[in-house]
């Protein structure tokens, strides 16, 4: 027999494999390739921790293996949980949209016969609604508590997300993965159909198709414990290992009149109107958050507003400054807005709360049924007469421009929906409004889930458009958002005290809306910093650069001047930030790079709890994400236990037999090998 370099045995069946291995040019272990099929393009559910709980999923350190079984009916669930003869099972669900998903997942959570869940994400069979978020988002870190509007707290009056089943906030002891690649789900289906199908109701025979999922998380229990253990590691270990990281990124802010970034604290003679929206979303799985209605609608509307306002505010600046802010991390107990408010309180921001005149927040505005828009306000702060007057004034100004829209206050007296404005109210009774497309509960049936995507927003194109044409095509969704943006822009201008005569020039362009909705789909999960491609999340960068494009001016600085503008006396690094951007990509060539000056800034969005080192704080967000070593999934066949034991038995028998025979032969060696031909001088 021969062996090749590298120890590849051209033994049973390996000749073909070796040729394949050689063909691909990769001489990896070809035996491993015969056994396992690695699944790429998988998305895990990871563990997140806050001050008191852990949520998400966890696998054991050497992966969880289970025999595949597809869950489609109740009898499948019985098979998995009680009657199937080959536990533990790896459950395959076609989508996460099972009919009574929470009860199914809860029953599996408590069973020891479930090794994990693999969800095949597809659009077919999409149920009418699915939201893994809670029914009352951010209920403990908003403004309503036992001491402030106690009858309004905890969604007593309105359940904002009544379709929510809270799965994202459960703790699963097995891994849950999402499979998105069509080719791989086909492989899995084929393996299942070949080996695991039940014939005539009887159990399938070995060998069976199985899957192994690796997603071992290092952090456990809660943030306090995890941070304590990390501190211990940092102090006493030679090679410290961090177990979890706080969720953090950056807020993006800009203003119509530039603010001096180096002067922190109260800004003299500044009274700003804040226009805000959120920048992030989440779903059950890691780094997956299309959040079209939940987040993108707000971002796009605010960007269109800024673009519409820019020319007028340069020509005829209103008395009040308008401060635009995109808050990151709002899904996780208002990370970005709580940090900004905290900084304002401690005089660590360009403005403070005394500078704030009023606030307008853009919530979910993409699903306006029948062209209606709602202005939500806080009833508790409106009990104060002066605040009430201001808020009513704001509402009136908004209503001035609602020609094409039907703008209204909510029909019942109810609290504010979950919004960044609540964090401002916690500190001071600022007059403000939250604009939304829903009267009471959300119109969004897929709030904070994988399915809140462009289809949810009804972004549809005529079938025969090229991608370039799609980029500029004005969809109905784009036009709708542009209407909202026009309304917001005009009312902000008036709210800031601008001249009514200039209003006709303020119109949002649906094209800018189309541009931003058709590119992507980007994922809006806040994640952690620093990241692989830079310290800032890609979406944050994206918004920052779009803002710079919309509101900035092109200068003729060179690259080194652009990066160090303090040396030039016409440029002011305190008032502006400078971006070196490459030119527009066109058919002929990519343009020349140039320097853009804009008053767009990033501000750190990390929860104040981590700066104060109060990891169990009930007032601020304490969300952290666990670290892990490897996330992978693979499928293979498993043999029956009997066959394995048989192999072991045969091995032991061969060993014992050979020991006996050898002992026998060696003790009788003189006799066995003595022969007349033996020379007498040899010894044994």
């Amino acid at each position: 027999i021969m062996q090749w370099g590298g120890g590849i045995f051209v033994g049973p069946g390996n000749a073909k494999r070796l040729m394949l291995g050689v063909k691909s040019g990769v001489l990896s272990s070809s035996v491993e390739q015969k056994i396992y099929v690695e699944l790429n393009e998988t998305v895990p559910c990871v563990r997140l921790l806050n001050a008191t709980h852990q949520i998400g999923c966890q696998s054991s350190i050497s992966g969880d293996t289970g025999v595949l079984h597809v869950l489609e009916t109740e009898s499948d669930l019985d098979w998995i949980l009680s009657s199937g003869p080959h536990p533990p099972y790896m459950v395959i669900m076609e989508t996460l949209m099972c009919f009574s998903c929470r009860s199914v997942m809860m029953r599996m959570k408590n069973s020891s016969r479930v090794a994990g869940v693999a969800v095949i994400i597809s659009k077919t069979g999409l149920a009418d609604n699915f939201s893994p978020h809670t029914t009352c988002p951010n209920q403990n870190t908003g403004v309503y508590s036992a001491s402030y509007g106690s009858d309004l707290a905890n969604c007593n009056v309105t359940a904002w997300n009544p379709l929510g089943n809270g799965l994202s906030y459960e703790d699963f002891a097995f891994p849950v993965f999402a499979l998105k690649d069509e080719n791989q789900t086909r492989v899995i289906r084929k393996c299942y159909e070949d080996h695991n199908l039940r014939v005539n109701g009887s159990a399938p025979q070995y060998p069976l198709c199985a899957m192994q999922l690796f997603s071992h998380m290092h952090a456990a229990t809660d943030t306090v414990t995890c941070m304590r253990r990390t501190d211990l590691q940092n102090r006493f270990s030679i090679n410290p290992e961090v177990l979890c990281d706080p969720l953090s990124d950056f807020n993006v802010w800009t203003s119509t009149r530039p603010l001096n970034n180096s002067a922190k604290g109260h800004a003299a003679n500044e009274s700003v109107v804040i226009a805000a929206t959120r920048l992030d979303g989440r779903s059950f799985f890691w780094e997956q958050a299309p959040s079209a209605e939940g987040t993108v609608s707000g971002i796009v509307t605010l960007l269109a507003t800024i673009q519409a306002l820019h020319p007028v505010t340069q020509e005829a600046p209103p008395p009040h400054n308008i401060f635009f802010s995109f808050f990151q991390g709002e899904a996780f107990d208002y990370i970005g807005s709580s940090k900004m408010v905290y900084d304002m309180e401690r005089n660590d921001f360009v403005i403070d709360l005394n500078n704030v005149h009023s606030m307008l927040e853009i919530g979910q505005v993409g699903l306006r049924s029948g062209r209606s828009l709602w202005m939500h306000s806080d009833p508790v702060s409106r009990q104060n007469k002066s605040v009430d007057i201001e808020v009513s004034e704001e509402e009136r100004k908004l209503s001035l421009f609602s020609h094409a829209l039907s703008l209204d206050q909510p029909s019942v007296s109810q609290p504010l929906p979950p919004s960044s404005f609540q964090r401002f109210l916690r500190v001071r009774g600022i007059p403000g409004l939250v604009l939304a497309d829903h009267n009471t509960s959300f119109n969004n049936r897929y709030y904070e889930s994988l399915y809140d995507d462009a289809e949810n927003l009804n972004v549809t194109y005529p079938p025969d458009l090229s991608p370039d044409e799609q980029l500029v095509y004005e969809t109905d969704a784009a036009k709708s958002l542009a209407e909202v943006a026009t309304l917001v822009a005009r009312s902000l201008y008036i709210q800031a005290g601008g001249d009514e005569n200039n209003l006709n020039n303020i119109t949002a362009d649906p094209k800018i809306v189309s541009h931003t909705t058709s590119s992507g789909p980007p994922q809006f999960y806040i994640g952690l910093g620093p990241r692989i491609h830079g310290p800032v999340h890609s979406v944050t960068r994206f918004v920052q650069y779009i803002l710079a494009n919309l509101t900035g001016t092109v200068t003729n600085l060179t690259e080194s001047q652009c990066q160090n503008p303090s040396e030039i006396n016409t440029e002011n690094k305190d008032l502006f930030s400078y971006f070196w951007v490459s030119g527009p990509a066109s058919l002929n060539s990519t343009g020349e790079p140039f320097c853009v000056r804009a008053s767009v800034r990033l501000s750190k969005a990390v929860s104040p709890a981590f700066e104060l080192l109060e990891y169990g704080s009930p007032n601020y967000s304490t969300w952290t994400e666990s670290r892990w070593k490897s996330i992978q999934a693979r499928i293979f066949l498993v043999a029956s236990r009997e066959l394995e034991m048989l192999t072991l038995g045969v091995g032991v028998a061969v060993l014992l037999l050979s020991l006996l025979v050898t002992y026998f032969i060696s003790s009788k060696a003189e006799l066995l090998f003595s022969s007349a031909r033996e020379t007498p001088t040899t010894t044994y």
Partner: protein
Amino acid sequence: MTVAVFFGCTFIAFGPAVALFLFTIARDPLRVIFLIAGAFFWLVSLLLSSLVWFITVQISNKNSAAQQRGLLIFGVVLSVLLQEAFRYGYYRLLKKANEGLLALSQEDTMPISMRQLAYVSGLGFGFMSGAFSVVNILSDSLGPGTVGIHGDSQHYFISSAFMTLAIILLHMFWGVVFFESCERQRWWALGAVVISHLVVSCLTFVNPHYQGSLVPTYIILSVMAAWAYLCAGGSLRNLKLCLTCKDKDFLLANHRPR
């Protein structure tokens, strides 16, 4: 598949070799040394043959399956011939070493006979060859999966283990016959060894029809075992005596002073 299969296959593949080592070689340091030297010689032959194969694969057309298969067959044949060449080289080296050992040793008699050297060197070749055959497969058998998702036979591990067992024992028998035929200048026997080695190697191309490769291999194994037994000084009569336990009388009879 799991730890059970790992241990099962390890015991199957290396059981007899380990038993032989424990009972016949481990006590004598000189035998251990020659065993390791034999293993080393086999390793060098593998290195050379894999170098040649690697170079030819690099310069070949990677997309042509027929050419790759041809290269594989060429590689098999080359490797077998190189192994036997190195076995011959080891034989010549041992011959020279024997003279030197005799000169150095205090006693008149040689500390180790050529027959024992044949056996030990064959076993050394077998150990190393078995290790390279099967260790790769054993490490993959530790995982939770078994072969078969792409349609291969499920009996891959156990067949590899039995094949390895056969190979190790065959190397030992080939060593004995080879050295004996070199001593007696019986070149036809030498040729027979080389040819049987080639046959066994080429039988693996029949895989995954494991019956087609394992059964003939074990037949060749029994034939070589018998031949080696005869070469090593055994005879049918001795075997019968041994098995019917008439050995005591025989030995006493043999040691009667003449």
